């Protein structure tokens, strides 16, 4: 479970001064459910998720991940989190097996368990053919599968996806979406950020619309459709941020 309470992050920029990247964002993600964070580029999605993954420290507010405070026990939080983003790449000069072994060891798993989990993930994701090949020779699909296995090697309770399908072709994107659904089916707490409306419609149980660093609307797809009297997610999004712009 993820509970974010008043998460705020500000940066100082030499040219633009103080920038509020995220302001007072609160939400809750439950196990076995997918929380979609929908927003345009620069809305504050990545900053929010990086705070949850303890890569950034909140300026104000707090969050708990699997019951652990992100500010007080960051290393333990990371041990409970699998983080997959377009920006989290793989080591080109390692093989897929070496990659999984490395992240397994970093998560404190004994060698035998790393080997067993690698075997299981390779079975699930059909990775045996390229498990001992170097990542720099991989196709996009192979890289995606390896990234998914890297995210799952320590069997995290919480999985954070930050625009995971960015720049992927249809087939590679479908592999990711199937994996997100699998995570939900296995009772993981999933948070999924995207700017692609169709993805949230397909995947998410709860949708949070974020714009200008603020969470403007939140609810199930049905709730949002009722609130904004629109069926199309894009129209809902435009109306949600339009209210803010008008205000």
């Amino acid at each position, binding site marked *: 479970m993820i509970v974010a309470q008043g998460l705020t992050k500000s940066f100082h920029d030499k040219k633009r001064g103080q920038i509020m990247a995220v302001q007072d964002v609160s939400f809750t993600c439950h196990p076995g459910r997918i929380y979609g964070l929908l927003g345009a580029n620069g809305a504050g999605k990545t900053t929010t998720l990086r705070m949850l993954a303890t*890569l*950034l420290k909140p300026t104000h507010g707090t969050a708990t991940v699997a019951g652990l405070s992100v500010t007080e026990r960051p*290393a333990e939080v990371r041990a409970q989190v699998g*983080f997959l983003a377009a920006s*989290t790449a*793989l080591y080109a000069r*390692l093989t897929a097996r*070496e990659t999984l072994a490395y992240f397994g060891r*970093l998560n*404190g798993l004994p060698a035998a368990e790393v080997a067993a989990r690698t075997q299981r993930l390779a079975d699930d994701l059909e990775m045996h053919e390229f498990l001992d090949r170097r990542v720099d020779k991989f196709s996009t699909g192979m890289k995606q599968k390896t990234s998914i296995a890297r995210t799952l090697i320590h069997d995290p309770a919480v999985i954070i996806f930050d625009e995971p399908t960015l720049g992927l072709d249809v087939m590679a994107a479908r592999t990711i979406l199937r994996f997100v659904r699998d995570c939900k089916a296995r009772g993981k707490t999933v948070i999924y950020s995207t700017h692609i409306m169709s993805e949230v419609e397909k995947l998410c149980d709860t949708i949070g619309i974020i714009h200008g660093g603020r969470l403007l609307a939140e609810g199930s797809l049905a709730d949002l459709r009722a609130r904004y009297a629109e069926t199309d997610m894009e129209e809902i999004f435009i109306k949600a941020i339009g209210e803010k712009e008008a205000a």
Partner: protein
Amino acid sequence: MNFNQIVTVYLKELRDALRDRRTLVSMFIVPTLVIPIIILGFGVVTAKIIRKARAETPGVMLLGAKDSPEIRAALAAHPRIRIVPARDDFRTLISNKSLRAAVELPDDFDAALLESRPSTVRLYTYDGEIKSGFATGELDRFFRDYREKAIQARLSERGLPAALVRPYEITRQNVAPPEKVGGNLVGGFIPYVIILLCFTGAMYPAMDLTAGEKERGTLETLLCSPVGRTEIVLGKFLVVLTSALSTVVLAGISAMATFPLGALLFAPEAGPARAVGSAAVAAARSPMPQIDPLGFLASLAMVAPIAVLFAAGLLALSLFAKSYKEAQSYVSPLIVVIILPALSAMLPGVELNLQLSLIPILNVSLVCKELVSGIFHWGHLSLIFASSCVYAAIALALAVRMFNRETVLFRT
């Protein structure tokens, strides 16, 4: 601090670095080949140039001496010079190297010598040009010998002993052991090369493991794992240090092998060295310079804290960059900063003192110069080692601090 995590990061980064061609070149190939190429390559080329210059009978122009057939005949009979016809543009000919040297004598040189009238022999040469130097050297020796014979003849005519004008002889005896002479010759050069190699050995992995990882997106993947940032930076630092130290050790082994090899290669050419006023010529005609092996090993040990300083400093600096290219633009100018103090140690007359002992890089360069000559000043050695360790610790603390700053890690 979790040592298991540091070791895990270290082993992975080392494996990754050893699969990077740039790192392999800077870590293994360059340090192994640079010193032999510089010492043996330059030695062979210099010896070849000198041999060729010596084999040539230089063309020399005789100006004046129109009424002096004796000196003209003596010069024409000299086997190691070739007299060419006089021309007014002799200076131009020497400058464009079609003439090696010229000698100008008064027209009545023979008569003046006979009548004991003073006269001047003027030699025209091209300073710094080896073939012109050889020709002028031959002329210089010829006229000294000719003058000596004239003095002997005059003394003999008057029934006076030779000791009248030469009351005593001067001889010179070297008491410095060969390694001290060798140490003075190469003492400044060897640490200079090793320090430079140490820097380049640390440079590529430092940039690749920080800015390179940022650019490729793998740093964020690593930061998502439970491993602490201090553990990450220490694991990476140890890889950069391994690269820098292996560069130093390989360069050291290579240098230790080069000197005996050079002695073997150049030994047959070692004949009775004659002073010809050129260090390069003297070096080429002598066996390879010897260096003190213990001192050499000690100088490698003195470079160790410098390797820590380079590894940590380069890591901190490269981490600040957003991309490998940006890191290169920060790091490349530093080579000049490294070269200047290392080069200063090669200047003649720069000696180690208390103030210089505290200047990083320069202090190690200077003390290495002494060490390879077999001189151990324990006070200086302790001070330099301690100060280098302090600088290295500051650089490492800075690298750790940089790694804990979000604004550096996620600089966009």
